[in-house]
């Protein structure tokens, strides 16, 4: 398009508010977090102030809770990614077949994605996982097993299950959409050449899905690294730190222990960790988006 000088100016003027607002939103709180992270600042002991050096970082990083939270964060993120991507591909393949009532099946499958996290977590915690009255307890007794107190005995696994239930529909929907854009004639031709289902999947469907899978991983990672509500309303991070992730640990330090300095150091650590993941992911997706 032959843009005149005026159009250019106008275009810049229209872009500026969004860029400036996002820039401020990104940079000001982050600088404040970094600033606080070097301060002695606890709302419970207002007399103790001043520069703290790296003390906050030392406390945060050497706290055994940090290691546990770090591993829990990784475990939640990776487990849910594997469950939803593999499950999403399988479900996508199934829904891509001829099915009576496909529209309704599709609606049923994607519905969990629209459930707010607090509702999802509380429904699972009580009506499904409760060891006395829950559905799982009923199924267990019917099968001749003793009911399991899921959230007390397997807190991290339970949270992974709840979060995977919320994200499986998302992965399925994205991957199914990508499968449906695969040229039917291409599949037909391969089928006529005698390709069976497995080789059709490996050589045609899977390469076609690469981009969609990358995008699913990117989006889910953004949300999974900071799972919060599901932990808050089910286990409260416990027992001990068994189901505490980094997001929940920092929340705990900030709003329950009033340790502004310590929580800020944690916040900086969380940002650095997320950035390591982000650099990797954005490159991967950036390539795919430009393609």
């Amino acid at each position, binding site marked *: 398009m032959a843009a005149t000088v005026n159009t250019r100016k*106008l275009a810049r003027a229209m872009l500026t508010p969004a860029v400036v607002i996002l820039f401020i939103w990104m940079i000001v709180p982050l600088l404040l977090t970094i600033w606080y992270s070097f301060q002695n600042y606890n709302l419970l002991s207002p007399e103790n102030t001043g520069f703290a050096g790296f003390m906050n970082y030392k406390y945060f990083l050497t706290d055994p809770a940090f290691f546990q939270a770090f591993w829990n964060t990784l475990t939640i993120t990776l487990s849910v990614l594997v469950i939803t991507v593999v499950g999403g591909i399988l479900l996508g393949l199934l829904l891509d077949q001829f099915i009576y009532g496909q529209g309704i099946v599709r609606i049923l499958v994607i519905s969990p994605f629209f459930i*707010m996290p607090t509702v999802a977590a509380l429904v699972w915690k009580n009506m499904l996982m409760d060891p*006395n009255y829950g559905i799982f307890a009923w199924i267990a007794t019917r099968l001749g097993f003793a009911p399991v107190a899921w959230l007390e005995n397997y807190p991290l696994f339970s949270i992974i299950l709840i979060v995977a239930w919320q994200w499986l529909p998302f992965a399925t929907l994205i991957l199914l959409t990508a499968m449906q854009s695969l040229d039917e004639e291409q599949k037909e031709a391969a089928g006529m050449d005698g390709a069976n289902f497995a080789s059709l999947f490996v050589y045609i469907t899977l390469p076609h899905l690469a981009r*969609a899978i990358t*995008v699913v991983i990117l989006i889910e990672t953004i949300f999974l690294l900071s799972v919060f509500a599901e932990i808050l309303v089910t286990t409260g991070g416990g027992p001990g730190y068994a189901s505490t992730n980094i997001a929940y640990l920092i*929340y705990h330090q900030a709003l329950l222990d009033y340790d502004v300095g310590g929580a800020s150091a944690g916040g900086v650590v969380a940002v650095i960790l997320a950035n390591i993941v982000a650099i990797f992911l954005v490159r991967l997706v950036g390539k795919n988006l430009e393609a």
Partner: protein
Amino acid sequence: MARAISPQKKWTFTILAWVVALILFFPILWTILTAFKTEGDAILFPPAFLPPHWTLENFVTVQTRSDYFKHFFNSMVISIGSSLIGLVIAVPAAWSMAFAPAKRTKDILMWMLSTKMMPAVGVLVPIYLIFKNLGLLDTLTGLTGIMTLINLPIMVWMLYTYFREIPVDILEASRMDGAVLWKEIVYVLLPMAIPGIASTMLLNIILAWNEAFWTLNLSAANAAPLTAFIASYSSPEGLFWAKLSAASTLAIAPILVIGWFSQKQLVRGMTFGAVK
């Protein structure tokens, strides 16, 4: 020509798909059914699938005891408000990048995407303290503002992918006719952009309605939207499953319906236009 699929195969896939779908949907169905049970029936063991005594009392109790519709209203204000403000900022930006791309447009888009990578918890402390000092804690203004900020990158991206599909030739033609810029926007661009804008708005409403980090941390009794209100059921006294279910059913119903109708747009918006 599609291959003929044997009836046997059709039925196998149909049954399999329905079984999986019903298992995935079951927690939602169970919530809706429990909402119509009495508290006693809700904890029957073995569970009663259909309510033995259908009742609406839970919906009434939830409203009379905790002013449910105040929180419903809060959710509406925050999600619709943040969507409208977001559009005012995002539409010009996306328009500019789609129709007058500069050298750095791609970089700016990637940068916007990368802002979504910043974990909310990394800035929880300063935002909380800023909110506290400005008196924004537990206010609809504060929550609407935060929601606008966190969803702005997605809105810009989604609008950008829609705007880019509008054929530029039409703009050229109207420019030849001597249409001034505002006319170009109002009469040519806007009608073609409206479906994209509407989809963006719907996706943003869904995301804002269900957002549960900032709403939980920055609201209390007054401005709490449904996410935070429902969280108060995590440590209740006595029998409460039926009431939890009633509150939950009302909280998820509107978004379920919007979600069902906007599946296609959702795919596009959530994947930054990479999957359509």
